[in-house]
Every structure is written in structure tokens, then in C-alpha cells.
């Protein structure tokens, strides 16, 4: 299940760009690999992030991983729902389990990300572990 309308990073983040603002989450593959998410450390609103910089962290019952910024920009909103219900990352990775919204400072960076087909190939090869 890889939605067609999103862009993907090699760190398994997705971004849905709408105008100047993009919504970021982790992919179904990533949540499945993580297992039950127990805590999402949300990014600070207003934080300026460069592409590839650590935005926040996710803890599951078996690991703790960083979530990176797939593109550069400023964090404009964090998904407060995840504070009470971090399991949304598992149950709805592309929907209610979104993590933060970023105001793109360099929209051209979107072209450097993968589309759904490319991400599918990526998972099938090197990223699929």
C-alpha cells in the first residue's frame, strides 16, 4: 500500500505537498518495521529544518528512531493527537498518523524525492530490509 499522491524519502518519510505547506509522516513499511509505537516526540513548532535534518523521534516497543525532514523548511504544526494516541502512526500512517507540517523553503527539493513507483522499487531492493 503505497499511495500514489505522495513523495517519499529514503528514510521512509512521506510528504504531501499542498501549496507551500507539506504534511509529513512515516510510511506503512516504516511503521510495520517499528512495531507498536508507544511515543512520538513531536518537533517544536517554528523549528527551521534543513533537508535530511532530524525533526523528531518515534519510540516503539522494540526501537527508537529519528524522523528526518524530507525537505527544508519551518515546522508550522505538530500532530498533537499523537500525544494521547501514538498508535495512530500504526493504524493510519498516511492519514491520522501524520506527524508534522512543514512550510517549504525550497519547493524544488520535492523533485529529489521518490514517487510511489520508485519507492516501491526502493523497498524491493536496498530499502526493503
Amino acid at each position, binding site marked *: 500500500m503505497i499511495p500514489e499522491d505522495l513523495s517519499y524519502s529514503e528514510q521512509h518519510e512521506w510528504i504531501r505537498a499542498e501549496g507551500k505547506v507539506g504534511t509529513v509522516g512515516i510510511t506503512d513499511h516504516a511503521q510495520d518495521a517499528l512495531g507498536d509505537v508507544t*511515543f512520538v*516526540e513531536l518537533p*517544536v513548532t517554528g523549528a527551521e529544518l534543513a533537508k535530511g535534518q532530524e525533526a523528531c*523521534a518515534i*519510540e516503539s516497543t522494540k*526501537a*527508537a528512531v*529519528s524522523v528526518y525532514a524530507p525537505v527544508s523548511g519551518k515546522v508550522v504544526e505538530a500532530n498533537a493527537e499523537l500525544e494521547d494516541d501514538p498508535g495512530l502512526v500504526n493504524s493510519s500512517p498516511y492519514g491520522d498518523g501524520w506527524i508534522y507540517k512543514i512550510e517549504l523553503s525550497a519547493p524544488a527539493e520535492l523533485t529529489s524525492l521518490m514517487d510511489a513507483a520508485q519507492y516501491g522499487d526502493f523497498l524491493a531492493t536496498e530499502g526493503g530490509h
Partner: protein
Amino acid sequence: MPFIANTKAQREQMLAAIGSESVEELFADIPPDLQCGELNVPPGLTEQEVRTRIAALADRNSGGLISFLGGGFYDHFIPAALDAIVSRSEFYTAYTPYQPEISQGTLQAIYEYQSAICRLTDMEVANASLYDGGTAVYEAIMMALRVTGRRKVVVDETVSPIYRKMVRSYTSNLGIALVETPAAEGLPDRDAVAEQIDGDTAAVIVQNPNFFGCIDDVTDLAELVHQRGGLLVVSCYPISLGLLKPPGQMGADIVVGEGQSLGMPLSFGGPYLGLMASRLKYVRKMPGRIAGRTVDARGRKGFVLTLQAREQHIRRERATSNICTNEGLCALRALVYLSLLGKEGLVELARICAAKADYLRGRLLAVPGVTMRFGHRSHLNEFVVNLPMAADKVIRGLFGRGLAAGFPLVRYFPEMNNCLLVAVTEQRTKEDMDFLAHSLEVILCG
């Protein structure tokens, strides 16, 4: 690494196996000035000879002094029951449990220790301990930097100079702004501290009672630092909390302290115990191990190490601390000590220490030329007196009479040449204190 003895024949066999003529040839690439050469090691001794030799060395120590030394480490009585309990083989390992859930007893002890520290400090969560009071201050600073994302830390001069020195050393390569504010008559100077709190200030560090033994209510400092988005870190003396307002009630965000007074014998350098407690909302930024209580699949009570995603074995270089152990045995001592003392015992102990200090203060001030420093401040069991001559000279004189009279503040405060820091615990009798006052009078007045 173990020392593995080998014979000349074995060495020759090993050299032959690697094709080397001699040990000298093997190490020939090491520049001569870096080679250790012949070691000046005397021939071996028998066990009997070693015992005689070491006993003779130990005799050169000055044991049995009547001690009024404090400065963060206090001579409290340790009940024999404490050693009996912590020496049980089930407990007798200081090492951190890495397959923790198999050690339910250890985890329960840690959990109960954490609960005791939370009640003592009136905080919401405590960790399973750190190394000592000084490293606990450093860890609190690192925690405040993580919580706030800021880069400036304000440490007041009334915090132990030993801790301040440790913090300067630990943080020297971190690129943070470490500011020390000058004290005003034995307490933090509110204006000086306020001036240093800005939008980049992660934390203000204070101590209560402070290094001069002065008691402070830092509620106003907590409000001040909170207004500007920073945290207040309070270093405490746990025995004092039997009587004093706990840091949690003053608005402290992180409470640390030296746990030595909770059943650890005084020894040069430890092992001691670092206390740390915090507000629950900052727990994920806390260093160290944390034990939690839970239920197993059948609903039975059990204990686990919890919130491990903060720790090195999961979070790697992003862990909240590079301290991956705890002072397990020392924390257990603290728990057993507090349990033996009980709630009322702790209050009574603090009261006795304060009353004895009050008595000694009266006796010392009756000696001609001795005055109180910071006399208008409140004190518990420790205070500073001004002497009519250099304090270290007086200390040397009293040493000859079997007294460790106190700590010469000039060692850390050059302008306090005549100042003596005196501490009293329940261990000091009326006779001890009378003897100190009398001896001081003899030395000062001849």
C-alpha cells in the same frame, strides 16, 4: 585485562612463533623515549610481609579525629543493620542489570529507592541514581539543555565549588555559555541571577542549604526562570529534607544531590551516590536507568526497566546520557538507610543535627575574636565562622589536639582567608563540641 604470567621459555616460544629474536626487537619501532625501560619494581613479598607493610602505611593516616568537616559530605551514623542487609548475596552487586527482568528483587529495590527520593524531594519521578552529587549537577544541566533547546546555563556561586569545578570541566568542550553569578552575603544575588536569565537560558542551578550552610527559599527564583522559559535545578542535602521545605514545593524542575549522607561511609572520593528527580513531563529527557512497576500477562505485580529508548543500548549516540550504569549498591544503601530511619526518624535526625549545630555555634561565638559569617541567614547543621587569624593555621593547631575542626573556605574563596566552615551531625557529642570550643579558645587566646 587480566595479568597472565608467563615464563622465559614461554616468551621465547612466542617470539619464535612470530619470528622475532627478542622482546627488544619486537618493540624496536617504538621510539626509545616512549619505551618504559626497566621498571623499578621491588622483588615480591609474602602475604605476611605485605600485610605488615600496608598496615604500617595505614597507621600514618590520622584516624579517630573528632570531625566537624562537612562541605557536602557528612559523618552520619550508619546502623549495623544496613551493612547486614546490603551484604546479602542477592543484592551484593553494584552493576546495572542488563537482563533486568530476571532480577525482580533488584528492580523492586530500585523502584522503592526511586519512590523514596520522590517523596523526599516532592518530585514526580526519580532515576535509579547517578555517580555522585557533582556529576548529577552536570547531568541536570545536560537535561535542561535537551528540554529547552537552549545553550546558556547559570550556576550560582553558593553551589559547591567542587561541583562548579566539575561542571566547568565536563562542559568545557560543549560550546555552551556557562555563567557563574556572584553571591550576596551567603545567598544567590537575585538581581545578579535575574540579569543573566534571558531567552537562551536553559537553567539556573542553586543549592539548598548552600555551600555556606545557608538556607534559602528559592520559590522566587523558580518563578523568575519559568517566566523566561528556563528550568530551575536545585541541589539538595537529603538529610536536611527531614525539616526543610522540599525543592519540589519551591518549583524546582530538576532536583539533584549528593546521597552520601544516606548511609554511605565517608571515604576519599566515594563510592558515593548521585540523586536525581524531576517533573514527570521531562522524564524522556532524563538520564540514567528508571525502574517501573507493571503487571505481567496474568495480572501479577512485576518490575521492569522502563523508558529505555532514552538509553545508549537503544538510542546510541542520541541517548540522554553516556552514563550507562547506576550506583546500584549505593542506592540500595540509601533505601535501606531511609527505611531503617523511617519518616519520623528522618525528621528527628534533622532536628538533632540542627539543635547540636545551634549549641556549637553558641559555644564558638563565646570564644573571644570569633564571629558569625552570614549570621543573619538561617542555618541547619552547617555554618561559617570568622576567626581572628588564618583558618588553615587554626585547623593545623586543632589537628594536634585530635580535632578536624572544619573546612578552610580560603581553598575555594581567596577572600575568605579567616573563614571556617563547620558542620555538626548527630555523631558529635556535647563533650566533642565543648572540647572544640575550649581548644579553639586555647589556640586563639593562649
